[in-house]
């Protein structure tokens, strides 16, 4: 299988705090990986390193054969191929929904405005809210905003999608509509790296589970093995805490 993301002995510090410790990870094309772990375990930081929202200090990160360094050109290439969805949606509040989505195609891909808006509408249909195109983010519910954020990322036609706790800021009744979109995306073969605590979602779509704690990958396994036969005690404890509440 084609390897699209490789992390090799990646280390990162926030001042004195060692957030990532010798992270090794390989993601192949079409793979769907769910990352879980207690808060502060470094899971968000790890995926934020993959598109250089955070810089790692030691080790190598290679995406599509391009290594992430301080070279801005490499960072640009990688960001064009890697989409990201945030916990807080981070839509641009001063732009309408359609402008939010068409902004990057117009300015980064230099696409004509009309074409970019057509693409934006296509993706809005895909996330099932084409009727909201001309509203502003503040007028939408959290679930709708997150779906717009997904459409905004997809409009750049990335082949890898990173999700950083996409449903953690949502009211419970809105989680499903966002997960449905993500499941659909997974079924279409998108390479996905998802930080989430939605274990139901993980069981449905993941083909690899990663459990992180204190900056290390403690366990990596198929969902079947991960949920039914976890190896480390730390994983067992975590699973018992989040599955039995």
């Amino acid at each position, binding site marked *: 299988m084609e390897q699209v993301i490789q992390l090799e002995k990646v280390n990162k510090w926030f001042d004195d705090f060692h957030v990532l410790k010798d992270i090794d990870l390989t993601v192949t094309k079409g793979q769907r990986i769910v990352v879980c772990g207690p808060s502060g375990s470094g899971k968000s930081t790890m995926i934020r390193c993959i598109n250089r*929202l955070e810089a790692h200090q030691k080790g190598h990160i290679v995406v599509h054969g391009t290594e992430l360094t301080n070279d801005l050109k490499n960072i640009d290439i990688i*960001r064009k191929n890697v*989409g990201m969805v945030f916990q*807080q949606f981070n839509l641009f509040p001063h732009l309408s929904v359609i402008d939010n989505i068409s902004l990057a195609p117009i300015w980064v891909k230099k696409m004509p405005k009309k074409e970019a808006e057509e693409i934006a509408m296509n993706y809005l249909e895909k996330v099932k809210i084409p009727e909201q195109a001309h509203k502003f983010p*503040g007028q939408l519910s959290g679930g709708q905003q997150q779906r717009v954020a997904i459409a905004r990322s997809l409009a*750049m036609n990335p082949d890898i999608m990173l999700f950083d706790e996409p449903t953690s800021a949502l009211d419970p009744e809105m989680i499903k509509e966002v997960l449905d979109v993500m499941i659909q995306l997974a079924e279409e073969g998108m390479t996905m790296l998802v930080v989430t605590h939605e274990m139901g979602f993980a069981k449905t779509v993941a083909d690899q589970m990663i459990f992180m704690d204190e900056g290390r990958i403690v366990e990596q396994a198929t969902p079947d093995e991960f949920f039914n036969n976890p190896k480390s005690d730390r994983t067992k404890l975590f699973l018992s805490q989040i599955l039995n509440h």
Partner: protein
Amino acid sequence: MSVITQNLSRNKYFNWTVKNLFSSWVNTIMTIIAIIFVYEIGSFFLNWSIFSADFRTNFQGELITDRILCSKNIVPGEYGACWAIIYVRWDQFMYGLYPVEETWRVNLTYALLPFAIIGILFDKLPFRKIFIYFTFIFPFIAYFLLYGGPGLSTVGTNKWGGLLVTLFLGVTGIGLAFPLSILLALGRRSKMPIIKSLCIVFIEFIRGVPLITLLFTANVMLPLFLPDGVNPDNLLRALVAVTLFQSAYMAEAIRGGLQAIPKGHIEAAEALGLTYWQTTRKIILPQALKIAIPPIVNTCIGLFKDTSLVLIIGLFDLLGIGRAALADMTWTKLYYEVYVFISLVFFIFCFGMSRYSLYLEKKLKTDNS
């Protein structure tokens, strides 16, 4: 009692008055004192400035050409203001020593100025793009009209004065300071240490020094920094000082706006592959400037008033011209008239800016929510 209140409750205004002005005996006394106070001051001022004032002629119907012809100087104690000084010296108040036969050029510039500004002020204006284009060519038109060029005789800035100098310094200073202040505010938040410290030093230095000092410095030191033979005139030196001063304050106002933008917006833009400048232009500045407009307008009001300090380096702005008028033996001692008039002119502009800022605040509250 209850019957009376019921009857009265139909009257909305009466109700409001009772509730807000006469709700208790303390409130009632305060209201009465306030009414007497306002009445006394108001009637005195109206009487002085309008009802018993001279405009062009005195009470005997003579045209006033000298202060001794003012009614109040003929019959002491009975008459109010003598506005003839403003009338006689109107040209100086408006244009300074600009040649009389050329003042149409200044008038034309004054008349075009609102069209140059309106496009920036109102974002839903019809044909706004055309107005914005005009905003950018207006400085060249204004320069040509005011200073002269092919087809128009040159009028040196030493002839400019009065409202012309005040508006020139205020409008040009604000106009030039705006782009500069955006760069300074962005620079102050830059990740590049050299740019960042340069911006901090510049902003803090300018903010730590009174405008008068800057004006003196610009007046004395600017020629030292320039090559021999380049000798900028006084007005230009003042403009440099005013622009630098304003840009530092505006930069701080804009920085306040920049700080209010959540980091997540920037990260989202970066993740989409937008460059720093694209992110700044499309995501950060539109939001930050909106938030910063009220404080920006505040600094503009401050600067507009501060332009009167240039009289200290020998420029005749509105206040300087007023003081020159008072120094004229024909008109000396008409302090009240001159200062009231000057205050009124400043008030009109500053109050306008203040109302605009309030209008924007209201508009921003309802926009995009």
